[in-house]
């Protein structure tokens, strides 16, 4: 498994080597500024983006909501998830199962959280979905503003990525894309350069401790090619020139319900809970290009740690700490001022505590036992492979027209 993508890695390494110089110096300089607890993160953030809209892109919504559900299950609170979703399929007139979104043909698990399962099983699974950017708010500008933190003053705190140098940030994108770009709602594109620059700006302001960038789109591996910032780990669903396919259809819903890559990623993550000691190496090792039908890539050029020392939950889970406080005396009776013997927080009293939510056996069942029919593979992802015509072709074309004109002028006299 491992060697399947080392080739990709080497290629990426070659293209970005020339940019490494100054950034290495920056990394060295800043490391001495770091506080004593270097390398540790105290909180997790997730930015989950579905860049598509319209009914036939149902699966992109399902991908993103599946990821949303997983990071929430692993303990990242809604207040630290920025969910960008066109959100136009759950209540789409074409949806035969209104107010639901399913990621598998068995329809066991409603990702839109209407609580249907709860009625059947008696287990309270109604979770709800908190969409932060909806409909046309999901655009390139707002996405890049979320990353860089350059918001208009009036933007409420719930729409802001308020991460800092002690935050691990997970960015997930699903939609249609091509060589070094990703389409936003059939309207505009974000380029690999823009993503690289946005992450570069995040690093400059220490908006992350470690960052994990994951995309499920055609030629997704090209999107991380322009990243040049330290502490970034990236992965994508398919190589340059390769499509990312959907996984299977649901005949009642009538469209593909999930993409292949995300399907297997989610399936793997279902086996993880917050206390899991599975590492990112295990995570990447489970990629199977035969099953996924594309070659996922991993980009570790600027990631300083060994992958077998980084936990999956460092990015997908919410890890936090609670500290004891030294006992203080209550306000005493002579009534002058409240008394504090001290507010020292003992360092030996620090407890590393993980956020974990209640186990959700239902989801696990959904992914492990779900979708008994996996035979239907639809190639609905063709939209994403259009490529801008190269400038050389344009120059050649205009040159030809010009030559023709001159020839005509010369011959007419």
């Amino acid at each position: 498994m491992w060697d399947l993508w080392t080739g990709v890695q080497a290629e990426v390494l070659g293209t970005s080597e020339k940019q490494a110089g100054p950034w290495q110096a920056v990394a060295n300089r800043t490391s001495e500024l770091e506080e004593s607890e270097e390398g540790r993160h105290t909180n997790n953030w997730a930015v989950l983006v579905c860049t598509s809209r319209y009914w036939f892109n149902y699966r992109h919504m399902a991908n993103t909501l599946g990821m949303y559900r997983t990071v929430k299950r692993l303990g990242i609170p809604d207040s630290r998830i920025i969910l960008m979703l066109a959100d136009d399929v759950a209540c789409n007139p074409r949806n035969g199962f209104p107010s639901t979104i399913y990621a598998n043909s068995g329809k066991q698990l409603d990702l839109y959280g209407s609580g249907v399962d709860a009625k059947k099983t008696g287990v309270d699974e109604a979770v709800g979905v908190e969409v932060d950017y909806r409909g046309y708010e999901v655009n390139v500008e707002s996405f890049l503003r979320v990353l860089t933190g350059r918001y208009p003053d009036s933007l409420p705190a719930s729409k802001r990525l308020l991460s800092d140098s002690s935050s691990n940030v997970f960015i997930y994108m699903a939609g249609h894309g091509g060589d070094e770009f990703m389409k936003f709602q059939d309207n505009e594109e974000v380029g690999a350069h823009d993503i690289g620059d946005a992450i570069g700006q995040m690093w400059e302001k220490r908006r992350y401790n470690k960052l994990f960038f994951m995309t499920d789109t055609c030629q997704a591996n090209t999107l991380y090619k322009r990243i040049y910032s330290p502490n970034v780990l990236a992965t994508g669903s398919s190589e340059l020139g390769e499509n990312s396919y959907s996984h299977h259809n649901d005949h009642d819903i009538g469209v593909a319900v999930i993409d292949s890559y995300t399907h297997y990623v989610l399936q793997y993550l279902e086996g993880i809970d917050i206390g899991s000691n599975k590492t990112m190496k295990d995570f990447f090792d489970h990629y199977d290009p035969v099953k996924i039908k594309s070659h996922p890539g991993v980009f570790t050029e600027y990631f300083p740690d060994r992958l077998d020392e980084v936990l999956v939950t460092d990015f997908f889970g919410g890890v936090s700490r609670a500290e004891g406080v030294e006992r203080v005396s209550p306000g005493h009776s002579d009534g002058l001022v409240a008394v504090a013997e001290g507010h020292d927080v003992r360092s030996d009293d620090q407890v590393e505590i993980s956020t974990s939510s209640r186990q959700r056996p239902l989801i696990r069942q959904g992914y492990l036992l779900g979708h008994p029919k996996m035979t239907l593979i639809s190639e609905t992802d063709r939209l994403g492979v259009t490529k801008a015509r190269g400038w050389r072709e344009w120059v050649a074309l205009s040159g030809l027209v010009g030559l023709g004109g001159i020839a005509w002028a010369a011959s007419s006299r």
Partner: protein
Amino acid sequence: MSGVATPSQERSKQRRIDACINASPRARLWNILSYLSILLVGIPFWWHTTTIERRPLPTGQVEGMDFSHADRQSIPVVFSASPRFITDQQERREFASRTAGACERYCLANQLDCERFAWKNQVDIEAENALQLRFDSSTGRAPYISMAGQHGGDLIIEVPYEHAPTDVLMDGLAAQIYTALSDLVPARPSPRPARAIKYSRRVNLAFSLLNEDSTLGGGAFDWDVEAVIARSLEPYLAPLRDLYDFAIESQIVYHAPLKSAPIQTETDEWMVTKEHMKTFVNNEQWTLDSGSSNDPVLRFLLFIPSLKHSPLRLETSDESPAFLIPQIGGVVIHQDTAVENADTTQGLPTARRLELAELELAFAYFASQLYALLGVPPLDPRYKTVDQKDGGGILPMTQWQKVNLMRSITESNLRDAKGTLISITRLVARIKEMVINKEVRSDVEGAVNALQKLAVGVPASAAGLRDLFVTAREAAQLANKAFFNPSMMGLLYFPDEHKYAVYTPLFAPVAVPVLVALLKEIKGWRGRRSRAT
């Protein structure tokens, strides 16, 4: 009019048509030049409208700026002597000024780093943020700071000899003073602890009273929060008022279920384990609210366990009912003896109002959690004594802590401002599409000017530390404002091939006939010239 034209009419018509189609070379030239002139006139407009506004930034000198002397900003240390030690007022003053002089000499003689102390004696005007150093008659104690009493917060140095010490003895005293001062005010300010929030002038404090399940009875539907804040919290906020603007909010929640149930112990108590302490704050189901603002919020939660889970304990080392969540806030479990001892056979206790006395314990915890979250440095335990023999209340915070807090905030603000300005410079150099408008430029200028003021050095004055603090805060604010200016992200990256792809279809169809016509004219003109010669 007849339908048939005469030959002469026919010819003149032919000429007119001829002249129309084959205009004179002059007219044709004007025609072509008019097209070209439109292009030429258009170029400046095109240039102007497609140029990215990038004003130069005055950040050249930032990289080399050194603020290490900011750590040496002198803090007034006021010497005084207790009447118990020297009864005569004149002699007291003399002793204070002699020791101040001795300290100065001692530092010079031993080449010690004493620049951060400005030695003063009591005669000088009471300086703001001054550290008080007081001589007292000997009881055999090492130098200490009392947290209570009339002279609470003063560093007390006990002098074991009487009025006229020799120079040698004075040197010994100066050495003792120097050791104590450098323990209490280290040469380099300590870094901000990881649990503390980043410094922001405005901080919201949100106090929430959470009933786990008030439907079971025994909940609190009201609390005397204003009184307890005024009594238990206000003394802690008062010394910080010139560093922070606090906004205080409160909220009562009737239903705040736990995400994971506590464990029942053998003694019929309920226990929240260490593992569950972080999940304790149930972000999904507790509607923790605060006013709409983008200032950082510190949350303080007073949790009343339901009758079902009462009494509730935390798995803490000292069995305290409180814990702190770094950068977020603090939690206190309400210890309600009334409910714990309630005789449930008599029916459920009714919901009630929490009075001042019941809240004081929780708010004492909140106060210390607040100090931890703001990063107030603790007083060195070697010097701290709580000694109430003089009477009077216990100080929430000493001047020594405040000086250290101001120094560490100033240091982190200076580092932030400088780092941000360097980041802006680097990004602007790297990302050619980045817009730099007037606003960004003026913010950057403001930040650079503020930093320059500090790099040159503010003259040591009574309010020196305060000036430094304010200027550094301003510099950090402006630098961050510039960095996060929404206009800095106006344009996306476009590869050159996209630009060709846009311009070529637009200009090629126009340019080809114009250029071809021009070529034809030149050709015709040369032909006419060669014919003429």
